[in-house]
């Protein structure tokens, strides 16, 4: 079982290895300069060069991503519950939420910074804004996609609405919420970096902007590497949480 599940990763690992190798070997052969495309070895060297305060940048960006993720999750679930709970609330909220979701968040980011100054909080807010919508939708869908017959059972047994909600609807929604949270985890990373691009004093996005100005491309790539590590860890944690709290839903 274990061996088989490990073997599942072999094709993607092989592909990854081949790409890395090509990336290392091809650019020098084709005389591509390092400031245009540094090889993986140079990138890893930069990522582990602790004369750059990576831990501070990683910490700041992680805070922004986590803050945005938690905020998006909490707001998304609450709004989803509100929408599923009451038709008038849904009628009031949904068009508004759709409008907010269609706004290009990248364009809103400068306004946030104007209002809130720069720092962790505005960037977390941008991350939350980008990531909350799928949680709203999936929560509402998960709460309402319940077998009509189960609800009939609730009525026959005279169960109050809150009990049907707690014992049937909410657990039913869990897998939906988790699959939305996976999307949110990725979106929160984008949001935090966008915020840092617009204006920030620290964080991995800031490193990329600065590296770009100095043509220090290996550092930019190294920052990207750190960002993807944070993103993958968060995504993995959400996946683990889903398997722990909603093991009946088949993982995707």
């Amino acid at each position, binding site marked *: 079982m274990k061996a088989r599940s490990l073997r599942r990763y072999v094709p993607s690992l092989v592909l990854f290895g081949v790409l890395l190798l090509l990336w290392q070997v091809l650019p020098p052969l084709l005389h591509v300069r390092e400031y245009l495309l540094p090889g993986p070895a140079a990138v890893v060297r930069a990522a582990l060069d602790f004369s750059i305060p990576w831990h501070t940048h990683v910490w700041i960006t992680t805070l922004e991503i986590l803050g945005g993720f938690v905020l998006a999750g909490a707001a998304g679930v609450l709004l989803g519950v509100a929408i599923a709970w009451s038709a008038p609330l849904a009628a009031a909220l949904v068009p508004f939420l759709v409008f907010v979701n269609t706004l290009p968040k990248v364009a809103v980011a400068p306004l946030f910074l104007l209002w809130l100054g720069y720092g962790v909080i505005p960037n977390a807010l941008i991350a939350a804004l980008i990531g909350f919508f799928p949680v709203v939708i999936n929560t509402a869908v998960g709460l309402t996609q319940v077998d009509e017959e189960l609800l*009939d*059972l609730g009525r*026959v*047994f005279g*169960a109050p609405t809150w009990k049907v909600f707690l014992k049937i609807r909410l657990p039913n929604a869990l897998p939906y919420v988790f699959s939305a949270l996976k999307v949110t985890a990725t979106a929160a990373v984008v949001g935090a970096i966008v915020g840092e691009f617009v204006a920030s004093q620290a964080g991995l996005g800031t490193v990329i902007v600065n590296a770009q100005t100095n043509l220090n491309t290996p550092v930019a790539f190294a920052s990207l590497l750190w960002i993807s590590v944070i993103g993958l860890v968060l995504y993995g944690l959400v996946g683990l949480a889903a398997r722990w709290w*909603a093991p009946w839903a088949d993982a995707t």
Partner: protein
Amino acid sequence: MIVLEGVGMTYRAESGPVEALRDITLEVGRGELVALVGPSGCGKSTLLRIIAGLRPATAGRVLVDRRPVTRPIAAVGMVFQAPVLLKWRAIVENVLLAAELSGLDPAAYRARAEELLALVGLGGFDDKLPRELSGGMQQRAALCRALLLDPPLLLMDEPFGALDAMTRDELGLELLRVWGEGSRTRKTVVFVTHSIPEAVFLADRVVVMTPRPGRVAETFPVGLPRPRTVETRASAELGALVLRVHETLSRT
């Protein structure tokens, strides 16, 4: 036990009003097992829901135990075509849902739940999740859930319709056993099916319904001796009655 007087049901569809049931008059005695057969779409399931008080009739009267039914009646066990078990709950917890939704202490019913599961051959499966059980086993669990609170009335909506022929026959016998065939404490059962042999084999009376709008075409008392066994299925008497019901159905 159940009295239907001129029950009719017309519901609004987008294309206009649809008459699902017309002038159904029917009595089901205490401890009687009545099977409703009819072409699909004849409103059998709707009629069952009207008796349960889950849908209001638009004409006529429904009495259960001499009381008019105006809202979902308590003390009824319902079984549907799908087992509709909670995917995230172990089998015994699914059976106990009946107690929980009724506001009773599930701990007090655990012993009975385990007893019922053993009675239908699910002893040792208490802690399994629904997806670990076959369709027939899941439907047995659903039957246990319906029986948990020992309701005097069972309403069954094509409960074995989704099962293969062999499991279906097995569950029919099982139903007769838990129904209390031969005992004085039998439950009243209304059993909707589209299998004529199943209806004749199980029932005291077979009610044949017409296509939409559903009306009672004819009622056949079933004189087959009880307890009914595997041999009953092969008897000439059963065969003759199946044929008569069949002829009536094809005339409607």
